[in-house]
């Protein structure tokens, strides 16, 4: 049995905004019967160009229905531009989270919203230059790239959970792996907002905890933050790292490299005096 939050159950048992809208301003359908879930979304704007009403019809499991209900609640009162900023994460968060295997339900909400806005603006249905990667579920490279970026995905399995791509015949697994590599190789600095000192310290701690420590621990080592002064991160190495002759290289080529990549390009890592 799935571990659904109370919020998911509530929106499944009593979904908000089920139905259709007469003469909608934007309308779209995504998914298909064969996929196992599908969503038809419509919205109507008021005189101030804000979303006055949003309605949906969904074929799918409890989390698909709950995600649709959540989406329509979230976007009501928003302008179209504001609505476009709603991410699948926002939908999942509104519901108090979704099981990993069900994240694709929130992605479906996001896709429907984008298509409905495209329909409103009269823009082309398929993103320019997008090409279908997963034939079974009709998922494009652009959709996969976006899911990887927004949710920091790193495996083909993750991508399948979020977009369904690769969940059918499996013939596209190599192509998905290539997209992951390609997205991971992108420089990310430009898109990073400027951090406050507190945010930066927290991000450094999180990055070490999540991205760095597990790898070091695999080799019997560990790392501890001693101090953070501006962009200088002072650390002490522990366990196998403390006695390892190559630990300088590890600090520069792995720890510093990851922090530059994930926190800020200005970061330097130094080892505390022993």
């Amino acid at each position: 049995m799935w571990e659904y939050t109370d919020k998911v159950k509530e929106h499944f048992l009593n979904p908000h905004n089920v139905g259709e809208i007469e003469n909608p301003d934007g309308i779209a359908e995504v998914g298909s019967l064969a996929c196992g879930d599908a969503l038809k979304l419509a919205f109507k704007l008021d005189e101030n160009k804000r979303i006055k009403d949003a309605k949906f019809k969904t074929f799918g499991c409890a989390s698909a229905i709950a995600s649709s209900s959540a989406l329509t609640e979230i976007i009501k009162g928003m302008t179209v531009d504001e609505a476009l900023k709603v991410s699948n994460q926002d939908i999942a968060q509104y519901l108090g989270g979704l099981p990993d295997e069900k994240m694709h339900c929130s992605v479906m909400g996001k896709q429907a919203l984008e298509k409905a806005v495209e329909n409103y603006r009269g823009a082309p249905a398929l993103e320019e230059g997008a090409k279908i990667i997963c034939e079974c579920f009709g998922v494009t490279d652009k959709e996969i790239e976006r899911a990887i970026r927004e949710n920091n995905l790193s495996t083909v399995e993750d991508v399948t959970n979020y977009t369904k791509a690769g969940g059918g015949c499996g013939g596209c697994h190599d192509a998905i792996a290539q997209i992951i590599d390609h997205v991971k190789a992108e420089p990310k600095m430009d898109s990073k907002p400027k951090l406050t000192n507190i945010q930066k310290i927290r991000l450094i701690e999180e990055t070490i905890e999540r991205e760095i420590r597990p790898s070091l621990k695999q080799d019997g080592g560990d790392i501890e933050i001693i101090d953070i002064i501006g962009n200088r991160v002072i650390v002490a190495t522990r366990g196998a790292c403390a006695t390892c002759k190559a630990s300088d290289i590890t600090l520069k080529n792995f720890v510093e490299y990851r922090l530059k990549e994930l926190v800020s390009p200005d970061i330097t890592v130094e080892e505390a005096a022993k």
Partner: protein
Amino acid sequence: MKTIYLDNNATTQVAEEVLDIMMPYFRDLYGNPSSMHTFGGQVGQKIRQAREQVASLLGALPEEIVFTSCGTESDNSAIRSALITRSDKKHIVISRVEHPAIRTLCSHLSTQGYKITELSVDKNGILDLENLEKSMTPDTAIVSLMWGNNETGVIFPVEEAARMAHEKGVLFHTDAVQATGKIPINMKNNIIDMLSISGHKLHAPKGIGVLYVRRGTKFSPFLIGGHQEKERRGGTENTPSIIGLGKACELAARNMEKENTYVKRLRDKLECELLKRITQSRINGDIGNRLPNTTNISFEYVEGEAILLLMNELGICASSGSACTSGSLQPSHVLRAMGVPFTMAHGSIRFSLSVNNTEEEVDFVIEKMPAIIDRLRGMSPFWNAKEQACSKH
């Protein structure tokens, strides 16, 4: 809220008589049957009796019964034993609708140098024995085909299949986890070499299984250790559960007729009424050739997990072959093997009854299901479109 349990192919309630007979072996008679003292030895006598009870249900000899921990262990033991005792052969024949205990094991073996042939079934889930004939080669070690399918209840002609396997000198195993206790099995009338049973599908507890190994069949144990089970399965006996399973087999023999009259009638009533009251629904699996307790019904344009959760709100328990219930993205491998269209497979619900179900329970489900399906169809973008398309004609 009262629970209406129509998921007996998943697991069953332990029968009261079974639980009663087990209790002393937890509390007072906790001895090890292998011990030299009477305190342990008396438990050994009870195990002998349980072995006879199991053998009696199957028309087998007591010495042909090996107690295991579950159906999966029995299946694994059977296949692995065949591969070890026929170590020059590298080919296994199964069907596309086998339980994961066989399918996943075989796909694992396929990475270790074994070749697997999966026989297909037709749209009613029926096996073509001609394909079996053609599939066997001099390299084939074992054929394993289930007796009754867990999802659809469809029965395979395993006795005939065993004869064909033997003609080619191939071992034959059947997973009879669902069939045991629901249809008569008499090992005197067939030449099946090995057969798997799971206790919790027939009102015994979870964690106990049986592998039947015909006398004279070469066997190599899966669990290697002590001399228990005549060195065919190491590990101290699960004494309370073995004794409970013996009782459960005795009850199953007694209830066999009820399964095929009372339970079958309730199942037939449930499925007839649901098909009558809910349009665009259909049965998956051959109607004439099924276990008496199982029905698998597809409700088109709705999704199985959503149906199950709405049923759950009313205390009704069942299963679905939809993709969403499994965490995979594809509907049940059984329904796919049968070529059930995805649109139908996603909305499939399996009801599996037992002798514990009542007419009132079935009537309640018949009364509540149409509203559940209507409610979800009302939310489905395909339902209206379909109705409009129909009204245009």
